């Protein structure tokens, strides 16, 4: 297997982990507390049992295509690795991980998230890989509806929670900027690089400039959905403008991931 293909498949597993379960877990305060409050033995048992449960799923699914399947143990190790990487990256991006904390706390914080994220990685190939039957792509006006639907689907359960306000309050402005840029990069990777379902159709006749334009359009829809939701629940209107912008960008991340997922899953 070429290096590029290997990187692409690992990346697809990681983004699949983020799409399927990662965002919901990363935006749940209780999972952060679990890392501190849960006894070490309990946490270890949770990880071991969870990873054991991944085994049958990985046996049936795997994140590789059938003709390129590694041994079962390699696949399990890889989805767990992907879960670790995504958990670490997402929590670091959102400022949940405090690198001034002891190493044990950092490891525990990531470990809590690993099992669900590894499940997401294992399921990514089943539902989202490019090996699936290609689906017709919605044309331009309809695609806006698809983006909106996906953004609402993933961001709506998160918008009313306190996590958005907490993450926005904790983040510095450079981190807010990093979240915005990461949202754009993740969106582009999901749509055009990691060979999720329908990628071939999305790539046809699209220059790099148009791909970037489509990515910006999708992210703008995610931002608009995030802002609309925060306004609808009264979170944005009552706050200073700068606070509303911070919260919108924080909520815009899951909204953009949801919009990308809708493009991959629906049309």
């Amino acid at each position, binding site marked *: 297997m070429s290096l590029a293909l290997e990187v*692409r498949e690992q990346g697809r597993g990681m983004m699949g982990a983020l799409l399927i379960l990662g965002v919901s877990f990363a935006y749940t305060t209780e999972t952060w507390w679990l890392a501190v409050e849960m006894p070490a033995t309990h946490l270890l048992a949770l990880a071991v049992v969870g990873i054991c449960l991944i085994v049958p799923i990985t046996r049936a699914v795997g994140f590789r295509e059938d003709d390129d399947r590694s041994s079962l143990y390699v696949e399990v190790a890889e989805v767990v690795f992907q879960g670790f990487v995504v958990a670490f990256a997402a929590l670091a991006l959102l400022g949940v991980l405090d690198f001034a904390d002891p190493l044990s706390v950092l490891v525990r914080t990531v470990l809590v998230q690993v099992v669900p994220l590894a499940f997401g990685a294992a399921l990514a190939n089943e539902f989202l890989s490019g*090996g699936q039957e290609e689906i017709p792509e*919605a044309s*331009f006006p309809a695609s806006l509806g698809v983006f909106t639907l996906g953004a609402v689907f993933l961001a709506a359960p998160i918008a009313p929670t306190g996590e958005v306000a907490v993450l926005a*309050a*904790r983040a510095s402005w450079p981190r807010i900027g990093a979240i915005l840029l990461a949202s754009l990069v993740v969106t582009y990777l999901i749509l055009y690089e990691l060979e999720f379902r329908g990628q071939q159709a*999305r790539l046809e006749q699209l220059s790099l400039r148009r791909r970037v334009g489509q990515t910006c359009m999708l992210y703008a829809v995610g931002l608009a959905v995030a802002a609309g939701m925060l306004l609808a629940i009264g979170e944005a209107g009552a706050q*200073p403008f700068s*606070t509303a*912008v911070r919260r919108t960008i924080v909520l815009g991340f899951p909204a953009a991931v949801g919009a990308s997922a809708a493009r991959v899953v629906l049309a």
Partner: protein
Amino acid sequence: MTRTDDETSTQGRHRDAAEREDEEVGEGGEGGEGGEGRENGEDGGGAGTNGGLNPDGGELLELVIVVASVLLIVATLGYVGWQATATTADGVPTATVEAIDPMPASDDDRRQVTVRLDNRNGTGLSSVEVAVRCGDAERSLAFEHVPAGGGRTGTVVCPAGTVPVAEVVTWTRV
């Protein structure tokens, strides 16, 4: 079919699709339904895989929306960058008395004191304690998750005839 080591999965699917297309054409020629199958394929390609373009005005509208999206993102990034440079990382949060109002009950001569906490730091504050001195009496306010560059308000009740003064006692950065 098999795939060579040098072939990416995309290339593999291209070849798969080409082979399937050849098979469909071949079957159509033998069975007499190839024309219909071919038309369906063309419809799917024309309507579904054109990158989201409609012929009449759709492309222009899409271009307008893409440009607006890029401008929105650039403006948002610019705002974030401006905020990042305008706010300092080592500023001290300040507390001020924003308003002094009478109590709702007419026979209560105490005063409701609204205190505003401002955080001009570039980072948020996980907790802040504010003391409000009303003459000899002292009240305390606790705030949590104060955003960077943002603020919070709280209200205490002070005895009548006192002049309230608010002061930040402790704070914890995130």
